[in-house]
């Protein structure tokens, strides 16, 4: 009976250790990432230079292909291989432009990582807040971190004050497809237009 209890205790510690290593790496990943982004945003670089730096950060820290497929919703199953390749290229350019464009206006952004919740071996949610200023209220930001490869965690979603950016993006894309009678090429055209402007 004692042996069973010891095995149980060891197993529990083993699980705790694994969970801890996931959560630590996810929070540290977000903490390092936000420090890097903040230093770019508060630097004396021009906006164009900041955008280049932010795009590099986005490319290394976000699962762009995963987010891209998620945002297609039910339509991702209808893509041919060629369309899938075309979409992923377009989405990457679109995402990096949109991501850096949204951030570049925040020159005084400071994010404090608060805690994390290990959902399972694939996902950890990191809770943080954007520190408020006299012009802007404090904002809660939760990060959905994909931790299947603990050595290389990647962001899959940002939940700002409870609102999921990935879900918003998915509904935006779906709206374009639906309003064009289910024609996915219309979305591609919209993305090209956005990238070129």
């Amino acid at each position: 009976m004692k042996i069973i209890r010891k095995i149980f205790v060891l197993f529990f510690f083993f699980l705790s250790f694994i969970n801890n290593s996931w959560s630590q790496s996810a929070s540290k990943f977000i903490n390092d990432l936000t420090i890097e982004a903040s230093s770019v945003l508060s630097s004396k670089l021009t906006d164009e230079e900041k955008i280049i730096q932010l795009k590099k950060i986005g490319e290394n820290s976000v699962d762009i292909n995963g987010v891209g497929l998620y945002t297609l919703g039910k339509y991702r199953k209808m893509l041919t291989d060629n369309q899938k390749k075309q979409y992923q290229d377009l989405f990457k350019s679109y995402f990096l432009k949109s991501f850096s464009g949204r951030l570049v206006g925040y020159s005084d952004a400071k994010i404090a990582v608060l805690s994390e919740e290990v959902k399972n071996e694939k996902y950890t949610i990191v809770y943080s807040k954007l520190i408020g200023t006299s012009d802007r209220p404090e904002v809660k930001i939760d990060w959905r971190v994909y931790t299947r490869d603990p050595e290389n965690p990647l962001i899959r979603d940002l939940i700002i004050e409870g609102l999921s950016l990935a879900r918003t993006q998915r509904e935006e894309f779906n709206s374009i497809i639906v309003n064009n009678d289910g024609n996915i090429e219309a979305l591609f055209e919209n993305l090209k237009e956005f990238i070129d402007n």
Partner: protein
Amino acid sequence: MNRIITALFTLLLIQFLVVKKSYSNENEVKDCFERLNRVTFALNMGLDKIIFKPISKGYRKLPSPIRTGTGNALSNLSNLITIPNNILQGDFGSAANNSARLLINTTLGIAGIFDPANSLGFEKREKEDFGQSLGVMGVGEGCYLVLPVLGPSTVRDTVGSLIAMNGGDVWHNITVRDDEEYVKEFKESDYWASRVTSGVDFRAKNLEAFDAMEKNSVDLYATVRSLYLQDRKRKINNSSNKTEAMEDGDWDTLENQ
């Protein structure tokens, strides 16, 4: 007569929503009037560009204590709608907390400009309205609507606003409806001034976020619709610490492709 018509209209809408809910898919966006909504949205964006955004920019130039005091006073006023809805939702703890806040901040806090209640242990909680209470009671959101000037809504939330304007909102009663059994000092203009200031205060707090959203959306209308519907769902579920987006289901399907 008007009240009877509004009450009947409200009941009909509620009935329609309840019936609608049983057939609805929770995650599907029900934009039954999308064409009209898009036209109204374009009109609202035009009004925002010409009126609300410039006013909000001007408001942002006011000293920070003035903006904070204004925000506090408006938030204090919103307790008049929040408290009855706390009760309707069975959240008596929040009703007591918000009543104490209203009492303390209106008196010691000088019409709500300051927030001494927070220092006394009565912390600020989420605002509630009749749309949220209907949601808690199980009424479906119905179709998405864009109202002129007022912006995004749903049939359920519009019914909620109608309830507020037909006796549910004490502030509306003592200003617009001029119920003398309450207070005589306030005028209709006070109500509209508070509504407009509330809109400007919200817009001013979100100037950068709105600009970034406008610049980086491929379909701004759909973005605003999605954010509004997610926000209402979150508020109805009172899930300020968790979110629907935490559901793993759809993310997991990616793993299998």
